[in-house]
C-alpha cells in the first residue's frame, strides 16, 4: 500500500507539472502580448523553457501574478472568489451524493420495477438538462413569476459567512447544481450496481445463503462504489473551478465566473493563475479517488496496476 501511495503521489506531481506546461504553452501561443502580461516586458525575449521556469519560480514563491486590468493581484482575486465556488459546489456535491447513492442502488436492486422506471425517467430528464436551462427555468418560475420568492441572483456578500448565510439567494444555484449532479451520480450508481449484481461473487454469496440485505450491503454496494469514487474524483475540476455556468446564470463572482471574464477580456494572468489552482486541486482529487479505489478494491493495490 505504501509503495502504491508513493508511486501515486509522484504521478500526481507529474500531472501538475504537465498541466502547468499545457497551460503556459497555451498562454504563450496566444496573441496579444500574453507572455509580457504574465512575466513583464523583460520576459518576452527569453526562450520557452526560461519563461516557463521563471513563471514557476514566481508561483512557488506564492506570486500568482498581478492583473493590471483589474488592478488586483491574482491571489487576492482568488481569495475573494474561492468561498462562493466552494460553498456552491461543495454543498451541491455532498447533497447529491447522499441522495444519489441510495437512489441508484434502489434502482439496481428493483430493476425494471415501477420505482425504477419513474426514477429513471426523472434522472434522464435532469441528466439531459444543461445547467443554464435548469437555472433559467428555476429563475423564471421561482424568482420572476411569483416575484422575489427566491433570489434571481446568487449571494453577493463577500466571504464564507456572507455566502452561507444568504440562504434565500443561495437556494436556486445550489438546487440547480444538486439536481443535475444527482442525475449524473444516480445513473452511474445504478449501472455500476447492476454490474456488481451480475457478478459471480453475488451468485456465490446467494448460494452460501446470504440474505438480500447482506448481498446488497456487503457485496454490491462496496463493489459498485468503485466507479462512483472515480466519478467523484473526476468531477473535482468541476467542483473547484466549474459551476462556471451556474455562476454566470446567477451572477455569482466565483472562480468560474472570474475565469470566464478573464477569457473574454484576454486577461491571461488571471486565466493562467486560476487554471493552475484548479489543476492542482484536480490532481489532488484524482489522487484521493485512486487511494479510495485502492482501499475499495484490493486488486488495484496488489496488482501491477
Amino acid at each position: 500500500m505504501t509503495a502504491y501511495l508513493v508511486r501515486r503521489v509522484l504521478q500526481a506531481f507529474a500531472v501538475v507539472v504537465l498541466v502547468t506546461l499545457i497551460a503556459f504553452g497555451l498562454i504563450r501561443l496566444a496573441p496579444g502580448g500574453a507572455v509580457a502580461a504574465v512575466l513583464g516586458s523583460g520576459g518576452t525575449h527569453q526562450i520557452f523553457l526560461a519563461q516557463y521556469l521563471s513563471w514557476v519560480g514566481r508561483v512557488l514563491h506564492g506570486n500568482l501574478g498581478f492583473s493590471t486590468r483589474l488592478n488586483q493581484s491574482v491571489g487576492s482575486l482568488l481569495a475573494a472568489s474561492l468561498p462562493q465556488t466552494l460553498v456552491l459546489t461543495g454543498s451541491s456535491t455532498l447533497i447529491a451524493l447522499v441522495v444519489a447513492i441510495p437512489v441508484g442502488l434502489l434502482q439496481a436492486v428493483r430493476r425494471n420495477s415501477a420505482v425504477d422506471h419513474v426514477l429513471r425517467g426523472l434522472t434522464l430528464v435532469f441528466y439531459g438538462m444543461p445547467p443554464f436551462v435548469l437555472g433559467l427555468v428555476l429563475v423564471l418560475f421561482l424568482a420572476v413569476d411569483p416575484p422575489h420568492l427566491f433570489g434571481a441572483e446568487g449571494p453577493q456578500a463577500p466571504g464564507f459567512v456572507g455566502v452561507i448565510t444568504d440562504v434565500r439567494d443561495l437556494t436556486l444555484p445550489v438546487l440547480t447544481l444538486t439536481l443535475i449532479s444527482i442525475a449524473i451520480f444516480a445513473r452511474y450508481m445504478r449501472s455500476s450496481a447492476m454490474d456488481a449484481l451480475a457478478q459471480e461473487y453475488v451468485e456465490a454469496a446467494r448460494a452460501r445463503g446470504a440474505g438480500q440485505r447482506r448481498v446488497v450491503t456487503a457485496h454490491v454496494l462496496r463493489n459498485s462504489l468503485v466507479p462512483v469514487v472515480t466519478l467523484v474524483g473526476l468531477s473535482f475540476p468541476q467542483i473547484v473551478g466549474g459551476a462556471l455556468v451556474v455562476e454566470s446564470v446567477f451572477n455569482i463572482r466565483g472562480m468560474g465566473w472570474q475565469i470566464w471574464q478573464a477569457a473574454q477580456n484576454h486577461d491571461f494572468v488571471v486565466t493562467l493563475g486560476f487554471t493552475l489552482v484548479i489543476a492542482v486541486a484536480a490532481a489532488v482529487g484524482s489522487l484521493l479517488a485512486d487511494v479510495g479505489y485502492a482501499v475499495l478494491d484490493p486488486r488495484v493495490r496488489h496488482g501491477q496496476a
Partner: protein
Amino acid sequence: MTADQAAPDHAHLPALPDAAPARGSRGRHAGPAVGPPGPAAQRAALAGRARRALAACRAYPLATAGGVLVVAIVVFCFLGPLVYHADLTRVLFRQANLPPGAGHPLGTDGDGSDELGRLMVGGQTSLELSAAAGILAAVVGSLWGAVAGYFGGVADAVMMRLVDAAIAIPAIVLLLVLVSIYRPSTGILVAVIAGTSWLSTARLVRAEALTLRLREYVQAARVMGASGARIILRHIAPNAVGTIVVNVTFQIANAILVLATLSWLGLGVAYPSVDWGDMIGSATQTISDGYWWQILAPGAAIIVVIAGFAMLGDGLRDAFAAAGRDATPSGATGRIGPASDLGAR
C-alpha cells in the same frame, strides 16, 4: 436506425436461438423486401434480420424509445422546414416577443422571428456539429484507452498521465480559453469539443482493457504469439464494444450539452448561424420580462435530444449486459446462467 443499433448482431440477443432467422423466413409473411432484388435466400435473410430487429426493439423498449426520440428530433429539424415555412431572414420588431398563439405556435423571439422555425434550423446546426464531435471523441478515446490499458507499464503511465493532466483542467475552461483566443470555424469548434471530451472515454475503455487483459483468452492469445495490435483489435475491442458503443451515444449527448453551453455563452457558431444555445442566450438577456417560451422551447429540445441519446445508451448497455450474461459456451439458452463473463465473453 434504432433497430439496427439495438441488434447489431444476432449473437447479442438472448431471447432468440440461432435458428430464428431460418424459422422466421418460412413461417410468416416476410413483409416488403427492402433490399435490392436478389436470390430468395438473401431476401429471407433480410426478413429474418428485420424480424430479429423487431424482437430486439420489443426486448429493449428503453433503447427503442431513445432511438425514436432521436429520430423524431432529427426528422423535425431536417424535414420540418420543408413542411413548416417561417420567415427567418427579416427583423420585425412589430412581432417581437409575441407569446405562443395563432401564426406562431411557439411565439417569436426578440427579433420577431418565429420560434418554431428557428428551433428547426438551429437544431440542424446543433445536431450536425454534436454528432461529429461526439463520434470523433469516442473513437479517439477508445483507441487511446485500449492501447494504454493493454500495454500497461510505461506506455500506460505516460498516456494516462497525459489524460490526467488534460482532465485536470476543466473542459469548459480549456474551451473558453481556446475559443476566446481563436474564434473558431465550425471545423475547429468540432475538433475543440472532441479534443476536450475524449478523455473520459479513454479512462473508461482503459479500465475495461485492464481487466480484459487478464482474461484467459487474452493470455492464451499472447502465449500463441499474437501481436499487441491483433489482441487489441480482435480481443480487447470486441469485448469492450459494449462500453464503446454506449460511450458514442453519451459522447454525442455530451457534445450537444457542451456546444449549447458555448453558444449560450456567446462563443459558439458564428452569426448568422444559430443553434439552440444561441436562442437561449438571447432569451437570457430578457429573462426578467418573463418570456418563458423563448427558453422553454429550445431548452426542451436540448433535453429531449440528450435524454434520447442517454436512453439509447442505457438501453444498449442493458442489451450488451444481457448478451454477456446469457451467452453460454454451448449457445444461447436464454437463461440467466452462471457463465457470465469468464467463459463466454
